[in-house]
Structures are given as structure tokens and as C-alpha cells.
């Protein structure tokens, strides 16, 4: 089965590893993009042959220039097109005729400028397709490949980064230049650096799949401005992580869609696009970062050092204060301070001064030189109780920083366990930090970032190695029943299902609904209540009323037929008073749920990601604290549990502080069933089960109220 994504390698080979490049549309004027790109390829030591193509010039920077691509006598692998957008189609045509299979279109003036640009872009897509050309762009900064056998800087970034094992891709050109400068200052290298612009042909997902199979790339960094095809993205990321173990890190600014406020349900309004993105990425195993700094703090840990197999850290420091700070930060990040074995402590006792602290953190004291660091770090890493080391250094008058840095690198590189460092201060430690960076030992200005990176690296390991558990598939369901109801609603042009219908759909998937029916008069209500059995709850039935409780349209604990009749009248009166124009079809009479904890379950169909499940504790927890969790459906079985535990107020259900434990097992099953429903009923756009009453352990749960929007 050949996924188009699997052909990424072959398609993109001419772009990333060309043996010859034609720069099409280059000029002679320094400071112009066409010239600068040509210059960059030339001066940054491209290992292949370069052919400038210029209608007017006979040579550019001393290299013979050709008037047309077709005039080039030799085969050409890659065309970098820098002509104005109005003539890129002519250039593409020639490239096609020439047999060039890869292109990078730098020029702007396409989709991003409006309808005329869209037409231009469609045309070049057509031409490219007809000749089998794969192209990146248009409107991009270009591509960099640091592999020494290629060494291509086909971009107008001012500087070529050093070689490394981090692959970076971004839609925004502006960010790319800033990232290159940041990385340069920190001695961070890249394998591939890609600005991909309008994605008219090669998409971000194609590029990710390329990096997946690129042996030079160990960690993949993506800057996302928008996620249009979220499901594909998530699937690609998951494949990468599962098949190759390469971490995928995403930098995405949090932006909430304005439309979220006009949502039709609780879930709709809570599932603002950014929270869903967060959940989706998390579920895929992607590490999401909020800033460039955070992105690289994590990247260097993942790229340079082995992943920590556990969370037990050994802290080696030469000053008490920073050691304490680091300890605090470690605890904050849910790391553990390792307990050294007796033999490790014995080694410390023998080799470190009497005043040194040999418990964790190991304080080698302010006058420590390289030898003490060597012993402390080496023994700590050798200790079976230690998963990784955090090395702190503060400059004191006797500290030979460079030597210590070298020694730390030596010891760290001999160990299969990770070592991270934080040399504190600025000027004095600069040369030491330089050594660490050059020798690929992760360094952090702050102990907090160091601990956070360690925690994330371990999180990633656990995520990567977590067995894939499929979602539970229930056989005892009646999809046809649900489909019939949904089709009927669609045919009748309804936006909402009635309560009866909603309960029926949920019931079809085995969710524990309470018996109930619609009553159309007070007398009918009394009959219904008697049939169902007291006590009952009665709720106004109207498409126009969303917040039944707020308008006093719900009455509970009705224990007699008389009360039922009275309740009917009251409810209808209240509803009319609150919303005179609402169309009230009656009152829904339902068995009381019994006492228990109220939780909210929700479903929303997201444009980018498809069905999204939501869970939270009801009432103020969701209304005020917005304490909810999200997952994309279908939700794997173990993730359902995660979803529940993630909610901060989850303790309310498990028996915290003397409360009775509730039936979380039954709750879990409800979520799983809802997940299946979400997948099998694509007609449902939003769904709220609010509340689901979770009774005591062993007593199950019940759907007290539901709203389904189609």
C-alpha cells in the first residue's frame, strides 16, 4: 500500500540532495533576493554545479550565465526560481521541458496576494503536475541542507547554520531568520532547514515524512501557523514517532478562534481551537512548545543526549544555593532526587572533601576543580539508582571553568545516561558554555529550564514506548437505530434532537439513559410520571431553550401525580416568562438519577481534527474553572483513563478527603462508548451529556440530560 506520504523521499531527493542547481531569474544587483540566493549557494560551498539563468546577464559573480534553462547543456536536478511571480509559469514550463524534477519557488505574489495570485498558483501547479516536478513554495525563504556532501544554502537567510541533527521546518519566513540567529548564538546545528511558504505542492506533511526517513535528522521541529488538515498531521506525527522514535516538536502560538463564543453547546464553547490543538498534539505524542526558546531547550536535550529512562536525577553542584534551586525545580517538574547507593556514597566520601555534601545534591564545594566534578559526575552516572545527571556550576575564584566543562563532556559522553548542565552567571562562564555547546552537552541558563527539559525527555520516552492500545469496540450497540433517528432529524430539517431522540441515540450505543418520555399536558405528565415511577425529574422540551436550569425550566424530586401536574404548569409558565418566543413542545418526564457526582461528557466535530471528546466535572468545575480534558476520537482505551485523570478535580470521584469513591469504571465505559458513537455518527456536530450522574462504586452512572446538535 503506497501512501503518497511514503513517496516523499523519492520526490524530495532532487530538492534536498541535488547534484546541480539552476538559479532561474538571478540578477547582478547585490542586495536583491535573486542575487543573494545565488551568492549564498555559491559562497556557502555547494558541492554540486551551479547554473545561473538570466535573460540579460552573460555572467553572474564570474559564473557563466544562461539566457534560458533550456540552454544549459547538462542535466539539472533542482531549479531555484526567483523570477517575479508574473513569469514563474514560463520558467516552470522550461524546467519541465528540461526534465528538472525538483524546484524551490522563492517568488512571492501568489495565493497570498488575492485572486490573481491564486490563479497564478493554480497554473504553476498544473504545469508542475504535467511534468512531474515536485516543488516547495511559492513565497518561501528556501531550503538549507548541511550534509557535507551537499552543503546547499538555497535560501536568502544571511547565514548557513552549522551541521547538526535537528531538522527545522516553518511556514513563516520571518521566523526562520530569527531562529537561525538564535541557534547560531547557542551553537545549535541543523540537518535540514526549510521554509515552505504557500505549500502549493510539497506540504508540511510531505516534509515531515521526508525528515522521518532522513538519516541525518534525529529530531524534527515544526513551526505551525495554522493547522488545516489536523487529522493528517496527527497521523503523520504518530507514524514518525512510532516507526522511527524521532521526537516531533511543534511550536504553535495559541490563538483562539473568534467563533468559539457563538457555539451551540458547552462543549462547543469550551473546545476553542487551541485547546483542541493541544489535545490533538498531545495525543499524537508531539511535544508542544510555546516559545522558540522552549522549542530549542527541548530539542537539544532530545538531539544530543540519550533519553532518560526514569526520573531519578543526580544533581552535582559546586554551591549550595543553586543546588537547592535545582532541587526545587526538579520536584516541581515531578522528577525525583535519586538516592545514591552505599558504594557511590563511599566513593564520594573517599574522593570529596569532608565538607562536601554526599547526599543528593552532591555539593563538591566552591573550590572544586575538574577532578572533583569528574568523580562526582562519573560515580553518579554509574549508580543504578540514577537515571540522569544535572550539573551545576557557579563561577568562584578558583573554578577553572573550561577544564571542568571539558571534563563534564568527557564523562557525560562515556555514559549511556543523559547529562544536562547549567553554568550560572554570564561573562565568566561564557567560554565554558561554548565548550559544552560545541560538544553537544545540553546547557541551560536556568535550572528550571534544565529540569523541565529532562522531564519532557522522559515523558517523550514513555510516550514513544507506550504500547498502542486500540480503542474499545463495543459489539452490543445498535448503530442502525441511531442512524434512523439522525436521518429523520436531517430530513425534517431539525438542528437539535428532541430529548427523547437524544436519549435514544445514546441508548443505542449502550450509554445508561434513564427512562423517560415527553408529556404534552399536565395530565399526561402525571400519567408519564406514574408509569416511570417516582421520583421523577421534569424538564422543559424546546429547541430554543439551551439553559433549562437557569430559566427554572427543570424541577426535580417530583413524588406524586399532583405534583407532576403542578410541575408541568410551573415549568411551562417559567419558560414562557423567560423566553416568550420559544416554541415549547412539552415537558420531558424522566426517572430521577439518584445521587452521585455530576460530570460532563461532550463531543464536538472540529474542522481540522474531526470528532473531539471532552470530559470534566460538572457545575463550577467546568463553568468557572474550565477544568476539562480533550481527546480526539477514536480514543484508545488507555487514553480514556488518562483523559479522566488529567482533570484536576478528578479527585472528587476517587474518594479524596473522606468522600465516597464513585463508579469511575462505569464512567470510563461511558467515555469509551461515546468515543465509538462519535466515530460512527458523523452527523452529530456537537453533543453535551450534562450531567452524567456517577453514583457510588458499583452503582453505575446515568445520563441525566443530553443535548445533541446535528
Amino acid at each position, binding site marked *: 500500500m503506497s501512501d503518497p506520504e511514503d513517496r516523499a523521499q523519492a520526490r524530495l531527493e532532487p530538492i534536498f540532495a541535488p547534484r546541480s542547481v539552476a538559479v532561474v531569474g538571478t540578477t547582478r544587483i547585490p542586495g536583491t533576493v535573486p542575487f543573494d540566493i545565488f551568492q549564498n549557494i555559491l559562497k556557502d560551498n555547494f558541492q554540486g554545479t551551479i547554473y545561473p539563468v*538570466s*535573460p540579460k546577464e552573460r555572467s553572474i559573480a564570474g559564473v557563466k550565465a544562461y539566457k534560458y534553462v533550456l540552454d544549459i547543456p547538462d542535466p539539472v536536478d533542482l531549479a531555484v526560481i526567483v*523570477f517575479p511571480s*508574473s*513569469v514563474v509559469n*514560463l520558467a516552470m514550463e522550461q524546467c519541465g521541458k528540461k526534465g528538472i524534477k525538483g524546484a524551490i519557488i522563492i517568488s512571492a505574489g501568489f495565493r497570498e496576494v488575492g485572486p490573481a495570485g491564486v490563479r497564478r498558483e493554480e497554473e504553476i501547479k498544473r504545469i508542475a503536475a504535467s511534468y512531474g516536478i515536485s516543488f516547495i513554495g511559492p513565497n518561501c525563504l528556501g531550503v538549507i541542507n548541511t550534509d557535507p556532501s551537499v552543503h546547499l544554502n538555497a535560501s536568502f537567510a544571511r547565514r548557513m547554520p552549522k551541521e547538526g541533527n535537528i531538522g527545522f521546518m516553518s511556514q513563516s519566513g520571518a521566523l526562520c531568520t530569527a531562529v537561525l540567529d538564535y541557534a547560531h548564538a547557542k551553537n545549535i546545528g541543523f540537518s535540514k532547514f526549510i521554509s515552505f511558504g504557500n505549500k502549493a505542492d510539497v506540504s508540511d506533511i510531505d516534509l515531515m515524512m521526508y525528515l522521518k526517513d532522513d538519516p541525518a535528522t534525529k529530531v524534527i521541529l515544526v513551526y505551525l501557523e495554522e493547522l488545516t488538515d489536523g487529522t493528517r498531521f496527527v497521523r503523520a506525527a504518530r507514524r514518525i514517532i512510532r516507526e522511527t522514535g524521532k521526537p516531533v516538536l511543534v511550536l504553535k502560538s495559541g490563538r483562539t478562534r473568534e467563533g468559539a463564543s457563538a457555539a451551540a453547546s458547552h462543549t462547543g464553547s469550551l473546545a476553542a481551537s487551541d485547546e483542541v490543538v493541544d489535545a490533538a498534539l498531545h495525543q499524537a505524542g508531539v511535544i508542544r512548545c510555546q516559545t522558540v526558546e522552549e522549542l530549542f531547550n527541548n530539542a537539544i536535550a532530545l538531539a544530543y543526549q540519550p533519553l532518560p529512562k526514569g526520573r531519578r536525577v543526580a544533581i552535582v553542584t559546586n554551591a549550595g544555593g543553586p543546588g537547592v534551586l535545582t532541587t526545587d525545580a526538579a520536584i516541581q517538574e515531578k522528577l525525583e532526587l535519586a538516592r545514591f547507593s552505599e558504594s557511590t556514597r563511599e566513593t564520594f566520601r573517599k574522593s570529596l572533601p569532608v565538607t562536601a555534601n554526599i547526599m543528593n545534591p552532591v555539593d563538591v564545594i566552591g573550590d572544586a576543580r575538574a577532578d572533583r566534578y569528574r568523580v562526582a559526575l562519573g560515580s553518579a552516572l554509574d549508580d543504578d539508582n540514577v537515571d540522569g545527571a544535572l550539573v551545576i556550576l557557579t563561577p568562584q575564584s578558583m573554578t577553572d571553568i573550561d577544564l571542568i566543562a571539558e571534563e563534564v563532556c568527557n564523562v557525560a559522553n562515556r555514559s549511556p545516561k543523559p547529562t544536562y548542565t547549567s553554568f550560572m552567571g554570564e561573562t565568566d562562564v561564557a567560554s565554558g558554555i561554548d565548550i559544552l555547546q560545541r560538544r553537544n552537552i545540553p546547557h541551560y541558563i536556568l535550572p528550571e529550564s534544565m529540569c523541565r527539559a529532562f522531564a519532557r525527555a522522559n515523558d517523550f520516552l514513555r510516550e514513544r514506548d507506550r504500547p498502542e492500545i486500540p480503542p474499545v469496540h463495543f459489539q452490543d450497540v445498535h448503530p442502525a437505530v441511531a442512524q434512523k433517528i439522525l436521518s429523520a432529524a436531517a430530513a425534517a430539517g431539525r438542528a437539535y434532537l428532541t430529548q427523547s431522540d437524544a436519549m435514544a441515540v445514546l441508548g443505542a450505543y449502550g450509554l445508561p439513559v434513564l427512562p423517560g418520555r415527553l408529556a404534552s399536558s399536565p395530565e399526561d405528565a402525571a400519567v408519564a410520571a406514574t408509569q416511570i415511577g417516582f421520583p421523577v425529574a421534569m424538564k422543559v422540551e424546546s429547541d430554543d431553550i439551551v439553559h433549562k436550569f437557569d430559566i427554572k425550566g427543570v424541577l426535580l424530586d417530583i413524588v406524586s401525580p399532583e405534583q407532576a401536574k403542578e410541575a408541568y404548569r410551573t415549568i411551562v409558565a417559567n419558560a414562557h416568562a423567560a423566553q416568550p418566543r420559544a416554541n415549547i413542545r412539552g415537558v420531558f418526564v424522566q426517572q430521577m438519577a439518584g445521587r452521585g457526582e455530576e460530570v460532563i461528557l461532550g463531543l464536538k466535530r472540529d474542522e481540522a481534527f474531526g470528532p473531539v471528546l471532552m470530559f470534566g466535572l460538572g457545575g463550577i468545575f467546568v463553568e468557572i474553572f474550565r477544568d476539562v480534558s480533550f481527546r480526539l476520537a477514536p480514543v484508545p482505551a488507555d487514553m480514556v483513563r488518562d483523559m479522566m485523570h488529567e482533570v484536576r478535580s478528578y479527585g472528587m470521584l476517587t474518594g479524596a478527603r473522606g468522600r465516597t469513591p464513585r463508579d469511575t469504571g462505569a464512567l470510563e465505559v461511558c467515555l469509551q462508548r461515546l468515543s465509538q458513537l462519535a466515530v460512527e455518527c458523523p452527523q452529530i456536530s456537537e453533543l453535551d451529556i450534562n450531567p452524567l450522574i456517577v453514583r457510588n462504586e458499583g452503582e453505575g452512572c446515568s445520563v441525566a440530560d443530553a443535548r445533541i446538535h446535528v
Partner: protein
Amino acid sequence: MERSEIQHRVQKVVSSVLKIDSKEIAPQSNFVFDLGADSMKSVELIAGFEEEFNIEMDEDRAREVQTVAGAVDFIATYVQ
């Protein structure tokens, strides 16, 4: 004015502004792609046409002209 005359005079202007031999200027020549005109030269070409034909061109639309033949057609709308 006959189209052939317009064509001839257009070619003259192009040759003079872009400093290329008339021989290399064909009707289907694209100003940017074949003749290497940049934004500065485009302004000069427009000025050259305006002077040669003693007309005042709508610059917005003039900027959309891509080929020599296109220029001939565009100028024709002013002189005929």
C-alpha cells in the same frame, strides 16, 4: 496608425531602453523573462512609450502588460 508601425516603434523604444539589439526582440518576447527588465526598467519603458506615442497611459493597466505584442495592443487602444 497601422499595427506594423506601432510594432516597429515599440521595438525601437524597447531596444533603446533595455539596450538590446532589435533583432532579439520578438512580438512574443516577455519583458521580464526574455528581455530581463526589472521594476526600474519597467518605469522607463512606460515613459518611453508615452513619449514615443505622445500618450498618457493608465499606469495600473500598463503594469499588467507582459509581452511586446501586449504592449503593441495596449498602445493601439490609445492611438487608434
